[in-house]
């Protein structure tokens, strides 16, 4: 169960300004059924550019509905230039905060507001021109970069919480890391990137594995009258064959896993899996 503030619950159960303004001065329509939430915001703006009415229709969870309700309350009475300054954090603050996994609901509110203002002014939003990074939720690189900068995001998980990008199949995770790095939001993530992006060619990998076997592993085994030979490397799978005393040793499986694999993961690549070529 989500820990929603009293204000979120109150705005969810008694949403303000539900509906659609006929002949609106500006309309913002964001999200989709497939994504699980969507918001249609309509504004009425008077001749002094003041928002005199705002209504919403939302498909989504409690925090999406509460964020929409809050948004309409916040913009009513504001000059359009003032309204344009509202951030997603302002919406979350108005509600006394949102669970971190639900921050994207406030982002949806701000996106709808921007779209409605752009519609009123007759301008095109730059977001529409970005390149789609997350295909599951149709999130563009420009949206992601903006969220990283505005909300000071530090990890892929936070990007997902705010924009939903990466929350589906997860295939864009690497791209998100790259964007995070390029945007400078990666101060705390940089270590993880280095380890992951350490892409070796198969030849480099084999060379490194042989080196570690020679230097770190064989001397120990030879002391007990055993030996080890590298048979094949296929992706993460390292096929080896134990020799000498090792072949008759009841602990050989343990040796492979606890010793050889551990060392190789430590010194070569932490995804390696060692297999006995004879089994």
């Amino acid at each position, binding site marked *: 169960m989500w820990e929603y503030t009293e204000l979120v619950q109150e705005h969810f159960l008694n949403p303000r300004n539900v509906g659609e303004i006929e002949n609106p001065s500006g309309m913002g329509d964001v999200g989709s*059924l497939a994504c699980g939430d*969507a918001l249609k915001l309509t504004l009425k703006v008077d001749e002094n550019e003041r928002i005199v009415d705002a209504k919403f229709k939302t*498909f989504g969870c409690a925090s999406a509905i509460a964020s929409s309700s809050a948004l309409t309350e916040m913009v009513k009475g504001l000059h359009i230039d003032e309204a344009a300054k509202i951030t997603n954090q302002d919406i979350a603050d108005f509600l006394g905060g949102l669970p971190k996994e639900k921050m994207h609901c406030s982002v949806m509110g701000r996106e709808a507001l921007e779209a409605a203002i752009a519609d009123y002014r007759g301008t095109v939003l730059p977001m529409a021109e970005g390149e789609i990074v997350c295909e599951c939720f149709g999130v563009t690189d420009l949206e992601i970069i903006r969220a990283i900068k505005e909300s000071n995001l530090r990890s892929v998980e936070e990007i997902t919480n705010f924009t939903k990008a990466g929350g589906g199949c997860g295939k864009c995770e690497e791209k998100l890391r790259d964007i995070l790095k390029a945007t400078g939001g990666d101060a705390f993530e940089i270590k993880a990137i280095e380890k992951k992006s350490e892409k070796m060619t198969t030849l480099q990998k084999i060379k490194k594995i042989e080196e570690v076997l020679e230097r770190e592993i064989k001397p120990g085994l030879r002391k007990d009258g055993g030996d080890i030979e590298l048979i094949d490397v296929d992706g993460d799978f390292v096929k080896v064959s134990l020799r000498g005393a090792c072949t008759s040793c009841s602990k050989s499986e343990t040796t492979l896993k606890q010793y050889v694999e551990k060392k190789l993961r430590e010194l070569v690549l932490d995804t390696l899996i060692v297999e006995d070529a004879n089994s």
Partner: protein
Amino acid sequence: MNTKADQVIYMDNNATTRIAPEVIDAMMPYLTEYYGNPSSMHNFGGQVGREVAKAREKVANLLGAEPEEITFTSCGTESDSTAVLSALQAFPKKRHIVTTRVEHPAIKTLCDNLDKLTGHRHRVTRLKVASDGTLDLDEYQAALEDDTAIVSIMWANNETGVIFPIEEMAAIAKKRGILFHTDAVQAVGKIPINLNNLDVDFLSLSGHKLHSPKGVGVLYVRRGTAFVPFLAGGHQERGRRGGTENVASIIGLGKACELAAEKMKEENSKVRALRDKLENGLLSTVPSSMLNGHKTDRLPNTANISFEFVEGEAILLHLNRYNICASSGSACTSGSLEPSHVLRAMGVPFTAAHGSIRFSLSVYNTEDEVDFVLEKIPSIIASLREMSPFWNG
């Protein structure tokens, strides 16, 4: 602030169940006076061991099994992991597994991580389901290979209640010399099971799904099946599962199995009638609502219904206001951003998957409760649809 049991209308029994009062009574002495260790030599402990043995018999009776085929574990998830990993270790040359796309995370996540867990490469075939959640036996048969180590298929699905033809599938696996495991966590106690006549080698069950406490489960292992323990340790459970027995809960589970056998008829008559009334009532009074899962090949207590163009979490929170407990396959309730993998595997459209609600009943539900839910839901759905941009009702 706390919500008490007597205030709620509890229709979330596939998540967990109320502990039967008779089960509590059976357990209490073993949480107070009789605290001996069942493995001890002295009579103070030994008498507890005899009660554990009786509980084992009661579980065996419900399943149509022998007591020695029953191993107590800590939960359904442990039983699932034990069965699959045991088969892979017993037959290390067999590197293929057959399962389905709609398994509980206990099996789904295990199969996703097999290579990492075992240190060997495995192939996993995940069988598709039709739009009504049922499996295709021909596809199943074709999926079996010479190096298939084990088949793991749930007896009944936790989200939709759809029952799979375990009898036939186990027999087919046996003919091919392949071990067969079934996660029967949702089936045990709700439909009759007689393992005596079946070719099932492993079966998992969980205590808290049938009115006994959380933290106790069972793995049935057919006599003569090669077995490698998951938890190494003492000689408890005849060396099959180390760790001092969760005595009180095991005794509670024994009592719960006895009760389940007695109430099996009620489950399939009274509970089924209540479920049908709820289901038919909702489908007929709420427009654009639909049943997820096969109409008849289904547990008697489960109804999974989609209300199109509204979102499940919002429905649940409205129900919560009336102390009605249910659950949803919506993305927003799970912490993930995508709706239930079960509904997606069935091809339920997004318009409906996000608005799915699972009602799962038990013998403790009453007709008044069903009437109350039927009275409240239509207006909840109508009010949410009124604010949905996709609803043109």
